[in-house]
Every structure is written in structure tokens, then in C-alpha cells.
């Protein structure tokens, strides 16, 4: 049943994406007499991406939950952002162009923590919706605000859901095209707990070339292009979150029981939190600005899972205390692959390093707080003259005059 649901989600995305793409491209169709040509409104494309993640088995040893057996994790994340409003503001002598961007963001995650001791596995889901506002002052400063709200639930107990919010505020300054720094705060559940953390980051190297980036608490990466279409990155990043988990479980023996024996509150649902650190390599293939594909793999370490009751989560500003936590000391492998679709015409931002920085920031903080972004396929790579493919006259007719033909 869950597989069918995932299948329908995939099919829905693949059906909606081309529909939206065709709708968008209508504005760029061949014009009829008297029909006004419409300028692209936004710098951001409508973007949808999805990726699948899986990791290996770990043995649970905490006596409170060791009856759950071995633990492994799989996740399918589908996320999007759509630009809603963009405004260019001409400052001073119109030599500085600032811009405001408002985006609608969201994601849907199917998470499958598989416990070998359970007969009926719990498929957890998380759906998030939010807004993102980005301000580029046109002169090296970028402000980034993200506010999201997510609902989590368990497919074995659909009637009980929980809503939570996440947020990010970041100020980013571009010192040079090869150096930028950021500072901010975030409310995140990335580490399986409610945390309010500072955001601190530095990037060294050009975004359209080789660059190293460190952003606490999101990632450390070294990125390098391998031609115009392929790029690679070596990275270390945390991944995790919290989910609703039905308290009632059925063991392989057929015995039905509850994980948390609470009183005084509705304990049909408990909290499942998890995090891990991924270290590995990611390869991005971007044949066009409308589509990119990635695979990544490596080692996952520092894995942790924990269960908490809502009894211990009354104060929405404090951390959640777990009644059963399980750190795993052993490392294992992980595999992650995904694809990104970008559709719609956008304003030209080639060579504009402030805009490159803006895209980079937007991709670094993914909707839904999963640390699972769309990748930087929307940042153009440097074009070497020799690498430019041959063109037909039709490709260049907008750029040359009759005089150039002689």
C-alpha cells in the first residue's frame, strides 16, 4: 500500500512537472500579431526535485527498545520551490539593481525506519509548506528568511498528526567573487531534536568554478566542475529529523504492545527522532538548466535514534527529552540519488555574482529542513571559448547584425 502511495506520488510529480512546463512555455510561444510579448518575471525557476536515500542495518542494544531488533532507514523526499513575487529595485543612478524574491516552498517525505523485530513496519511521513523571502541589495549583501511548517504522521495511525515549525534567518556578505561569509540563526529538527542554532558559514572559491564551503550546521563541501555538464563534490553533512510514530507496535511474534507506557496524555503517538552524519562524494549531471541528476554515496557515521513522549514535549521552546535513545557506534554505507526539474523562463543573471550567491543560499537551505537540497544546477558554469559547441545561424540570429555576415 505504501509502495503504491510512493508510486502515485512519483507519477503525480512526473505528470504535474510537464504540465506546468507547458503552461510556462506558453508565455514564450510564437506570437501572433498584436499579442504582447511577456518578459520573464522571476530569476528563480519553478523547481521540483526528488531523491531517495537508504542506509544499512544497525543493531539496537538499549534494553528499553532492543525488542525492535535491527534498524535501517530509507527515505523518499520530494520538494519544490515556486517563485511567487520578484521585484527589481533600481537604486542610486540605476547602477545598482537590488531585488526582492518571495518563494513558496514545500516538501513531502516518506520515511521508512525499518525494525527487524516488527511485523508491521511504520511508514512515517512529513509534509511541509512555507515561504521564503530573499533580499539582494545589489551590492554584495543578501538577507535570507525562511519560515516553514511541517506536519508529521505515521501511516499506521493516520488520524493523529503533529504540526511544527522551522525557520532560518541568514545574512550573507560577498567580499569577493571567491569569498563570502554568512551568519544567522535557525530553528531546526535536523538533529532529531528541537534546536535553536547559530548559522555560520564561509565559502572560498568561485561558485561557477572550484569552491570550498563550510556552513554550520548544514555542510562542509569541496565542489569542483568536471566540464560544463558534470560536477562533483566531496561533502560531510548531517541528516535527520523528527517524526510522529504510532506508540502501538506489533512484533514479529504477533504480540501487540506499546513502546511508551505513559499516563495523563494521549500517548497513542510518540516522537521518533534520528540523525546521522554523511560523508562521501556526490556527482551532478546537468545536461540543461531544466534538468539535473545526481548520485551520491559514502559512509554514514554517528547514527542515533531516539523515542520521546509528548509528555516531555510540552514546552515548544525547549529540547525534547527522550525516554529511549540509541547511538550506533559502527559506520556503514549509504546511497542517495535524485533528480531536479526546473521549468519556466527566467530573467538573465549570467555573470551576476550576487545572484549566484543568492541561488547558492537558496539551495543550501532546503524546504522541509531535511538538508537535502536541489543542488546548484541553476548556477551557470564558466564557459571556455574552446568548449563552446557549434551553432547554426538560427541560434545566433538574435545576437548578430547583417554586417557581421560579411
Amino acid at each position, binding site marked *: 500500500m505504501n509502495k503504491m502511495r510512493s508510486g502515485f506520488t512519483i507519477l503525480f510529480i512526473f505528470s504535474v512537472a510537464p504540465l506546468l512546463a507547458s503552461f510556462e512555455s506558453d508565455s514564450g510561444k510564437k506570437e501572433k500579431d498584436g499579442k504582447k510579448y511577456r518578459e520573464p518575471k522571476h530569476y528563480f525557476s519553478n523547481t521540483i526535485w526528488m531523491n531517495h536515500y537508504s542506509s544499512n542495518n544497525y543493531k539496537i542494544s538499549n534494553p528499553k527498545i532492543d525488542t525492535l531488533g535491527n534498524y535501517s532507514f530509507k527515505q523518499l523526499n520530494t520538494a519544490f520551490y515556486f517563485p511567487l513575487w520578484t521585484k527589481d529595485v533600481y537604486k542610486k543612478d540605476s547602477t545598482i539593481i537590488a531585488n526582492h524574491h518571495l518563494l513558496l516552498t514545500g516538501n513531502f517525505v516518506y520515511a521508512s525506519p525499518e525494525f527487524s523485530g516488527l511485523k508491521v513496519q511504520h511508514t512515517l511521513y512529513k509534509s511541509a509548506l512555507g515561504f521564503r523571502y530573499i533580499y539582494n541589495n545589489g551590492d554584495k549583501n543578501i538577507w535570507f528568511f525562511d519560515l516553514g511548517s511541517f506536519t508529521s504522521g505515521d501511516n499506521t495511525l493516520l488520524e493523529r498528526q503533529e504540526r511544527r515549525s522551522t525557520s532560518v534567518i541568514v545574512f550573507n556578505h560577498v567580499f569577493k567573487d571567491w569569498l563570502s561569509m554568512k551568519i544567522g540563526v535557525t530553528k531546526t529538527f535536523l538533529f532529531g531534536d528541537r534546536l535553536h542554532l547559530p548559522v555560520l558559514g564561509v565559502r572560498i572559491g568561485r561558485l561557477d568554478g572550484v569552491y570550498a564551503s563550510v556552513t554550520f550546521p548544514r555542510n562542509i563541501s569541496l565542489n569542483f566542475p568536471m566540464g560544463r555538464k558534470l560536477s562533483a563534490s566531496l561533502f560531510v553533512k548531517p541528516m535527520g529529523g523528527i517524526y510522529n510514530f504510532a506508540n502501538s507496535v506489533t512484533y514479529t511474534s504477533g504480540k501487540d504492545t506499546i513502546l511508551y507506557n505513559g499516563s495523563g496524555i494521549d500517548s497513542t503517538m510518540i516522537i521518533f527522532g534520528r540523525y546521522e552524519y554523511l560523508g562521501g562524494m556526490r556527482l551532478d549531471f546537468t545536461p540543461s538548466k531544466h534538468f539535473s541528476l545526481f548520485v551520491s554515496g559514502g559512509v554514514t557515521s554517528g547514527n542515533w535514534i531516539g523515542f520521546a513522549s509528548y509528555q516531555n514535549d510540552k514546552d515548544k521552546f525547549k529540547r525534547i527529552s527522550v525516554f529511549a535513545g540509541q547511538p550506533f557506534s559502527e559506520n556503514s554505507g549509504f546511497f542517495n540519488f535524485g*533528480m531536479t526539474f526546473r521549468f519556466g523562463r527566467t530573467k538573465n*543573471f*549570467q555573470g*551576476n555574482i550576487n545572484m549566484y550567491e543568492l541561488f547558492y543560499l537558496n539551495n543550501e537551505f532546503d524546504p522541509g529542513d531535511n538538508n537535502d537540497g536541489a543542488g546548484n544546477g541553476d548556477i*551557470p558554469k*564558466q*564557459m*571556455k571559448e574552446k568548449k563552446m559547441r*557549434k551553432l547554426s545561424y538560427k541560434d545566433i540570429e538574435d*545576437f548578430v547584425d547583417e554586417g557581421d555576415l560579411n
Partner: protein
Amino acid sequence: MKKKFTLATILGTFLVMCSFAQPNKKDDIDALRVTIFNKTMGMSTDESAKFWPVYNDYMQKKETARKSHMAANKVKYQNLDKLSDEEANALIKAEQNYKQTELDLHVDMMKKVKIILSPKKTALIYKAEEEFRKKLMELVKEKNEK
């Protein structure tokens, strides 16, 4: 049922991927322009950061003016020999207005660029534009020779 569903999903995925993976030559051309302009005009990081938003804005407005003009007069251009005097006069006026708009946009862009760059570097725009067009023509010729 399950087989058909899987097959439809795979086929749908493949078709969508193919349609989205078509390379866009305009983006490559825009990227080539950045490379040639940066090389020819020798701009510093700060100058480049300010120049490109202004130049892109100019290019966008120029494209909008051209496409709007073509959209508004496409049928007239296709039937030039069948136009009435009134229609011909309207087309001439539209063409002149369009050329004037192009010139105004260029003058406005150069005025802004002169604030960002020194006059000498600003004048190098003409060289950069020529180099860019020359390179495009070379790429067309190379394709035709093949």
C-alpha cells in the same frame, strides 16, 4: 495491473527526462558573452559585480522590445507586398519607434556603465560586443564547413 503501472512510471520518467534534458543554446551563448566580455574589458571583481546586472537588464529590455515589436507586427512583415498604404505607414512608424527604443536603451545602459567603469573600459564594450559576434559567426562557419 502492477506491471502496467511500473511500465507507465518508467516510460513517463524517461519521456519527462528527455524533454527536460534538451540543452539550451541560448544559455551557452549568454555564458560565452560573459567570458568574452570579462576577458576583453578586464574588469575587476567589483566592477564585474556591478556591470553584469546593468548589462543583463539592458539585454532583457532590448529582447522584450524586439520580441514585442515582432509580435505586434509579425503578420504585416509576412505580407509586406499586400499592405495598404495605411498599414505600411503604421509599420514604418512602428519600425522607427522600435529602433528609437533600441537606441534609447543603449544610451541609458552606456550612461550607467560610465558611472561603474572608467570611460576607457566603458568604450571597450564595443570591442567586446564585436569579439562576441565574431566568435558566434566563427562557430556558425565551423558548423557549416562540417
